[in-house]
């Protein structure tokens, strides 16, 4: 159950972005979670919703995009989707060590409502 720790780290990033961009309310957060990241999306959603309570991201919808595991063969250059966690290249049978995607734990975007901004040194008020 390390999703709570990951949800806390996620919320920290979201609130920092919200403050930097003068958002008074966050209503949607898009994240990428690699298929190989040891994260259960439903559990992450649940933990995030609990932690976000009483913050600017309270009630925000968390959209989780799961990215497939993709590897690049260092022998023949083939880029292929890894199935059943075998990194063996389908072209030349070399076992690839380079992982192109599949381990992401990434915030992609934060959406919300921007507060009034006078144009000069917006006061985020921490």
């Amino acid at each position: 159950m390390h999703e709570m720790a990951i949800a806390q780290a996620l919320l920290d990033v979201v609130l920092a972005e919200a403050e930097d961009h003068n958002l008074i309310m966050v209503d949607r957060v898009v994240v990428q979670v690699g298929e190989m990241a040891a994260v259960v999306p439903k559990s992450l959603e649940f933990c995030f919703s609990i932690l976000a309570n009483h913050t600017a991201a309270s009630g925000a919808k968390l959209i989780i995009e799961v990215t497939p595991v993709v590897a690049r063969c260092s022998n023949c250059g083939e880029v292929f989707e890894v199935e059943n966690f075998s990194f063996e290249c389908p072209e030349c049978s070399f076992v690839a060590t380079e992982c192109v995607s599949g381990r992401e734990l990434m915030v992609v975007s934060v959406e919300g409502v921007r507060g009034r901004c006078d144009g000069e040194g917006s006061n985020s008020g921490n």
Partner: protein
Amino acid sequence: MEKVQIPVIRNILEAHERLAQENRRIFDKAKVFVINLMSSPGAGKTSLLEQTIRALSDQISVGVIEGDIQSSEDAERIQKTNVPVVQINTGGACHLDPSMIRSALDALDLSSIDLLIIENVGNLVCPAEFNLGEHRKIMILSVTEGDDKALKYPLMFRMSSVLLINKIDLLPYIDFDVEKIRKECKKLNPHQIIFEISCKTGRGISQWVKWLESELDQHYGEVNWW
């Protein structure tokens, strides 16, 4: 009121990664080689530590950080081997994180340690996701856990430089296909080195310790791949 979408592209664990890198700098400055030992509960982490500490050359000073949800039983076992040990109780958390390691370092004199072994919380999932600043991730799988674990918990197998297959003295009594798991690990992590060991009989321990000593010799020769 203006609705906006802010493109971000930031690693969720960036704060953890920063702390892990700070730890790494501390280790490198003090010339301490650090391994992060991971496995399920009961696979034999503490037994491996006891065996390893006994078998290592006297020239190498060892320090240990013990991670457990509760209790100091493991730390007490390690204390008997006369090496400095710090117990971290995570109080429920299922893995160690780099800030816990940083706090534990206050209780260790790194200048008198060559090899620091961090025994992570027993868990085949969560510890694999958190870098602690270590130089190598090492994992143990005991044969009683079954030979299907590499494909069920691929991240830890992918991230570990070494897989120690423990309790091989029990092989005659259970269905565990060593070749099957070797084959799967080869496709998952071709650089991984596998040792078959028994902490009970001592079989295979000398090969593992020899590997560890040679890694210590090289110390700063390699960068993490992934």
